[in-house]
Every structure is written in C-alpha cells, then in structure tokens.
C-alpha cells in the first residue's frame, strides 16, 4: 500500500520563533581552513527584498563526500572535521540578505554516470510560499565543469545564469528572485 504524503503549508511570518539555530548558518565551524561565505539577497516579483525568508542548503564536501545521516554516498561519509553539509539561515535581518559559512563542494556523480559540477542544493521558505522553492547554486568560475553538468545543461541557456554564484570577497554571491524578469530557475525534485 502506498500512503499519500502530508501536504505542505507555508512557514508563515513567525517561523523565527522556532526554526533558526545559533549555529544554523555554519555548514562548517568558523575558522575551518578554506571556508567561504555564500551571501545574497532574496527578492519578490516587484524587486522588493523578502526579509522574512528562511534559506537552507545541503551539499557535498570538497572531496565530493556527504555528511549523510547514514553515511551514504560514494567513498563513504565526509572526512572533513566539523563538516555538517547542512546550513540554515533565517535571521530576519530586515534587508532580505542571508549569509552562510561553508566549503566549496567537490564534484559528485550524476545522471548517466557523468560527474556533476560543484553545486549546492537550496530550499527557500517564506510567508507566501505554500511549498518550499528548490534551486541549485553553481559556481560561475567552474566553467569547464559547468559546461558538462547534466542538470545545468538541461536548463535553457538564457536562464542558466540565474543559477551561477559570482565570486565575491571571501566567497560567492547568489541572489534569488522568486518572480519577475530575473526570476531564478526553480526545480521540481
């Protein structure tokens, strides 16, 4: 027998009393060698910032290994000390921005036994979002890997740029537009 899933509902405007953690934005502990920041701003369909958003990321470590619950994945679990693989930021700082501390992921296998380009999976939650939005962060300076990534190449060329984080002091910048002329590509997973 197959059961139906419980439907999704919005996090609403008051998620901040329950979801943010003090160490949420730290995919790795502060001071981890090679750590980078992922920073950006979330915008609505009129270009106004969305201050009441919660962003979560999940990714491999620089060796392409995951800090998976069950140690699943090729090569076993991550061997990077303190690497959690998961980050959550929802500080409601007011200007719609977020900041996460992480390591740049390595390449992991993908469809058709091709290697994927380095990427970070993203879930976005907010008041007004009845279901999470899923997107992926790729890295603009990984041109060769991006050119052969099966997921990125499946995205129409004109919209691919919305998935590319741009190098910035200390890390990368990645804005999300949930609607409008610069609308980010979102996925059904």
């Amino acid at each position, binding site marked *: 027998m197959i059961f139906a899933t419980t439907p*999704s509902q919005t996090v609403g405007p008051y998620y901040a009393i*329950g*979801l943010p953690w003090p160490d949420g934005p730290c995919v790795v502990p502060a001071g981890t060698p090679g750590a980078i920041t992922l920073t950006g701003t979330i915008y609505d369909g009129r270009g106004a910032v969305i201050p009441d958003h919660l962003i979560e990321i999940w990714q491999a470590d620089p060796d392409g290994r995951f800090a*998976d619950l069950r140690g699943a994945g090729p090569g076993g679990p991550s061997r990077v000390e303190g690497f959690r693989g998961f980050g959550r930021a929802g500080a409601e700082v007011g200007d719609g921005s977020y900041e996460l501390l992480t390591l740049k992921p390595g390449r992991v296998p993908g469809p058709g*036994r091709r290697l994927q380009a380095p990427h970070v999976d993203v879930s976005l939650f907010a008041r007004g979002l009845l279901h999470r939005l899923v997107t992926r962060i790729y890295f603009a300076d990984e041109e060769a890997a991006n050119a052969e990534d099966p997921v990125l190449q499946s995205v129409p060329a004109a919209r691919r740029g919305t998935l590319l984080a741009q190098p910035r002091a200390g890390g990368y910048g990645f804005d999300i537009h949930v609607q409008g002329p610069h609308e980010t590509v979102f996925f059904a997973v």
Partner: protein
Amino acid sequence: MEQRDSGGVAWSDPGETPIAYLREGAGAHPPLDSPAYKSTLLRHPREPLLYLPQTLTEITGPALGDAARIGALDHDLTRQHAGAPIGERLIVQGRVFDTEGKPLRGTLVEIWQANSAGRYLHKHDRWEAPLDPNFSGAGRCLTDDDGRYRFVTVKPGPYPWGNHHNAWRPAHIHFSLLGRAFTQRLVTQMYFPSDPFFPYDPIFNSVRDERARERMVASFNVHETVPSWAQCYEFDIYLRGPAATPFEEEL
C-alpha cells in the same frame, strides 16, 4: 536490486537509502500561485518548475540528531519557564512514516505555535492578545526507532490576520520535518478537528483536495488522554518514500 549504484561508484550505504524518491502528483501540495492567500501574489514563480533528477545530493540528508541540538525540555513547551503556561494542556504525538508506511527514525521534528490567546512571541505579531511569560511556543525532538515523536504544549488560539475582511487563522501548530534526505524535507501545519474557521481560511484551503486537507488535521485520542492532566491529539505525518521504479536517467 542492482540499483544501489549511482555513477559507477560503490556505496557505503548500509541499505537504507532509496535510489530515488516518489515524484508527487500536481495535487499533493498547494499550488504556489494561490490568489486567495494574498502573500503568494509576488512570491510565486511564474516560470514552470524544471525537472531535477534525483542525484546523490537529493537522496542524501543531514545527521542533526546530535545531543547538543535537543535540550532535555525541548519537547515540553509547558516546562520551559518558571511557571506553567495558561491554556488547555495537550499531548501532541504521532509517528512519521514514508509513503510505504515505513517508520522514519531519527528525524528532527521542530514545532512552533501561538499561545492560548493566539499570540506569537515574535516582534512582528501585533495582535492585541496577551503574551504569556511562561510560554515561548517552540519545541523540537527526534523520532524514536518507531518513528514516534511526542510534545507537551498548550492549545494555540486562533488569531486574526490581514488577508481579507474578518480573516482568522484556524488554531494550528507549525511542523518542520527534516526527513532523511533532501527530497523528504517538509514544512506543514497541524490543525484541530472541526475548527469553525476551516471554510474561510485560504491557507488551509490552498490544499484543494478535501482528503488531502484531512491529512493536516489531528485526531483526538481519548485513550492516550491522561486523566486529570492533558488531552491527547494524534498527528501522523507521511513523507515521500522510495519510488517503485527509479527513472532511467537517475541511475
């Protein structure tokens, strides 16, 4: 099955990771564009969602069951302050399953809610109902080996909001479930049976199918109700389970 192979690399997986998760039909979750809920207007994508194959990144998930994250009283929202909060004391419990009915153990369940007067302990909540100095309204726990979770709390009150004239949210508790893989992540709301505000609430009714809406409504359990102490509501949650047949491109 020969499918425990992704990208030609051996797995260290002890056998619990499905190679792919069920893809849900269009009606399983509310449409992002739900005009009756006005906040969706500028916050839903206009472009269609693109197909994301379920690769390793999507079928793995974090281990956040560390003791440091779960405090001893995090599951009991009535014992987080010096005194007891005002309101009807409730036990809210249930099990977390996948769509094959398999219990999901060790998954993080986080809840947040208004107090018994319908007021959240949040700087932007301006509803003129009293805050309760003995109630913060947030809890977390991990499911046990049978997928069970259990919270003690007070019944949240309904509250007015600005969506339309005389709009009130039905009483609800917010639930966040991490699941065991990125694909299983779910945020939802638990409602109480026969709430008079159901017919008028655009968030509850954003789920178009009546049977699907019922899956967000807890049931009163008299047998687990503790005499002279607390009413019990049961709320089972189903997250996506393994796909019967993985799509070719995901192998």
